[in-house]
């Protein structure tokens, strides 16, 4: 029998980390269609317990977003336990800990120069969210992690598996296939995505994540200590926390605790700073004198030191408040990019970008591979927000998944009936390229795929002269604006090589009355 009390405390922490990571990957893999219109799991829960995103999205929205209420629970627990989340639950933190052996750090980890960065960043992001520069998702650890997994790692993994198993299928002898084919089936049924997907900014998203791992070279948990604005928010809260680590005041000279501390939370006098300590509990195990303990205390003897430069902090706030006004000098303040097609249920543009936390969940779940991360078409503040790129993929008519996974309500959750009434854009034909119009060649693949029960793409019979000078009867497609929902399947399926002859733009989108089409009026 194992005596539970004898299991070192840090084993419990490791167990918690592993369970958390397992749960994270389980929810990630299940961020996909599973045979029902409604998702079975709250796959976005990680983003909904994130108080940084909750604060920033709520500040941008101007009211507290109820969907993000679980984040309040995380903050309450932080008041009790300190930065436990960083040490016990954060999937990015767990991955960084797991890669510690692969990316050994060069520094001793006592560098305190950058510690205040995360507080400046936190202030900047909060002020920016208020004034209209919503960038929390650029730095939030979960957004970075899920985005890069969804946009880069997952498709790459699938491509790797497909390449390998195609090779074995085509080249290997039968007995090998007897082993590899069941394995491939198993992987497809479990971790591999159903579709091979393609994403813009895949490499950039990956590079941001890799950079965080690379920074481990400087010191352990460099990102968590110095940059992570969520960690910053936890640190501010942990300043008032009840559970605190105490070291012996009269211990010897060993400094083991300082050397093992992954957060650099222990100073020369061996005080454990509650701003940095993530309760990994390694120090307890390494203290030869068993002098370290964690206890609940009502009042603190010593206030934690933030080490903030008032000038820099005010500077960060001023920057966050001033920058947004420069955004108004861009052309897009007057005329949005006509190809900026937002998912069905997306709020009006300013609200949408304000509340979008750039988590990538909607792009991961999009079964048509239509949603892509924006680069600069939505401005510097809109990077990684979802845009429909109708040539690569389309919005599936009966699907409502993106609204279900959006953690902040930037994309409203719609019923299938509500969704079918939402117009996200409008198709238009390039008659110079469309085959029945330009060449007298029969086609109307767009009409075949148009999903509205009364088809938005209709056709007229016409006798035209083809390029050989023959008179031929063809069906020429045209669009009925009132029926088109902007799903983009026509553009995706247009069989012309290169650019499509039918292109969807945001004209007429129902979320913006100013975009109304002629005849549509201000309904």
């Amino acid at each position: 029998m194992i005596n539970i009390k004898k299991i070192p405390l840090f084993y419990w922490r490791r167990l918690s980390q592993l369970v958390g990571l397992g749960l994270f990957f389980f929810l990630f893999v299940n961020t996909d269609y599973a045979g029902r219109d409604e998702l079975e799991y709250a796959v976005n829960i990680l983003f909904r317990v994130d108080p940084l995103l909750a604060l920033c999205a709520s500040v941008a929205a101007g009211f507290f977003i109820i969907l993000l209420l679980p984040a309040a629970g995380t903050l309450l627990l932080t008041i009790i336990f300190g930065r436990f989340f960083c040490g016990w639950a954060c999937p990015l933190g767990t991955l960084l800990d797991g890669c510690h052996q692969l990316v050994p750090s060069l520094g001793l980890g006592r560098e305190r120069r950058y510690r205040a960065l995360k507080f400046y960043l936190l202030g900047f992001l909060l002020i920016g969210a208020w004034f209209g520069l919503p960038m929390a998702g650029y730095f939030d650890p979960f957004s970075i992690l899920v985005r890069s997994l969804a946009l880069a790692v997952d498709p790459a993994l699938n491509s790797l598996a497909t390449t390998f198993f195609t090779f074995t299928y085509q080249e290997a002898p039968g007995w090998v296939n007897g082993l590899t084919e069941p394995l491939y089936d198993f992987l497809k049924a479990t971790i591999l995505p159903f579709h091979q997907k393609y994403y813009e900014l895949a490499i950039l998203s990956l590079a941001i994540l890799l950079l965080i791992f690379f920074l481990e070279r400087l010191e352990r948990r460099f990102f968590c200590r110095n940059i992570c604005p969520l960690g910053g928010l936890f640190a501010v809260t942990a300043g008032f926390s009840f559970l605190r680590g105490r070291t012996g005041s009269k211990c010897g000279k060993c400094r083991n605790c300082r050397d093992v501390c992954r957060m650099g939370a222990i100073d020369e006098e061996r005080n454990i700073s509650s701003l940095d300590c993530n309760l990994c509990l390694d120090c307890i195990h390494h203290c030869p004198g068993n002098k370290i303990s964690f206890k609940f205390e009502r009042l603190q003897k010593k206030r934690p030191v933030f080490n903030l430069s008032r000038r820099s902090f005010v500077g960060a706030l001023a920057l966050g408040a001033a920058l947004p006004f420069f955004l108004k000098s861009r052309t897009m303040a007057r005329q949005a990019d006509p190809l900026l097609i937002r998912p069905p249920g997306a709020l009006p543009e300013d609200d949408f970008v304000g509340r979008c936390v750039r988590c990538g969940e909607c792009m991961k779940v999009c079964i048509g591979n239509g949603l892509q991360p924006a680069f600069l078409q939505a401005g510097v503040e809109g990077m990684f927000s979802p845009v429909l790129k109708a040539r690569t993929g389309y919005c599936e008519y009966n699907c409502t998944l993106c609204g279900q996974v959006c953690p902040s309500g930037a994309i409203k959750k719609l019923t299938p009936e509500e969704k079918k009434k939402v117009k996200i854009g409008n198709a238009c034909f390039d008659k110079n390229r469309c085959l029945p119009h330009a060449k007298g060649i029969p086609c109307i693949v767009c009409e075949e795929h148009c999903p509205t029960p009364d088809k938005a793409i209709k056709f007229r019979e016409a006798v035209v002269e083809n390029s050989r000078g023959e008179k031929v009867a063809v069906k020429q497609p045209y669009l009925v604006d009132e029926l088109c929902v902007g799903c983009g399947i026509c553009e995706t399926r247009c069989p012309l090589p290169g650019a499509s002859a039918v292109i969807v733009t945001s004209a007429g989108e129902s979320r913006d009355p100013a975009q109304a089409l002629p005849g549509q009026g201000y309904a």
Partner: protein
Amino acid sequence: MDRREFLRQVGLWSAGLSLSVPHFRICEALAMENKSSMLSYATGKDYADLVDRVLSSLGGMGKFVRPGDKVVIKPNIGWDRNPAQAANTHPQVVKTLVERALDAGAREVKVFDRSCNEQRRCYVNSGIQDAVGEIKDKRVKFFHPDDRKYVPVDIERGKAVRRLEIYRDALEADSYINVPVAKHHSLSRLTMGIKNSMGVLGGSRGAMHHDLGQKLADLATVVQPKLTVIDATRILLANGPQGGDLNDVKVLDTIVASADPVAADAYTTTLFGLKPEEIQSTVAAHAMGLGEMDLAKIRVVKA
């Protein structure tokens, strides 16, 4: 080249051992066998019973599936639509056919389609996934097509296409049973059996639309069903091939079956009040000797 040689070539090609693309030229021989085309149809509310009736009047499933056969049953599961919307083959029809093939002693029965909407949604919404899932028999394989298994095939007799990528299982089947739903289609006017074979094509299928009738007939020279069962239990009269509006659906409670794919399409066309000559793929397939389209020469039996 006979069937066995063809299969050997397909095997070699997909094993990467041969660079030459397999040919297929047994269709003339098959066409010769159909001296007089017989067609059976039945009407009624019990769709499983309809299937049984048309099968027995054609001589029973045993005529098309022999014990130990590898069978492919190819329904239309093209669209993310429910059974009432008449865009996909009725699940009960598919299920009954699978069961009869099993009863006839098939070694395996594969059911699949390459859909146009998202595959999983189509399989679920069509009701076919649930219906086939109810059959608890390991010989039934209901799956999504695997991109690795499309093989390029030279269409020797093709007039409009010379080469197509075709799903390997469809080529290798001992018995290929085509189970389309009959419905409206803007370009081809109707989609029935011959059009349904597009579901075994790989690659970009949009190019088929440029001269669709002839290209479908060309495809029919290599994808030759032993049996065509056309689901006209409810037919879509407009806004096809997807539909979505129940006002466009007409309930006929009818199933048509024939070993002659052209005859099956020709007869079903009349259910829409159209003449067989109005459907280009029927005309083209008939011209290529793939079957009979003259209703006077088809022996129609009400089962």
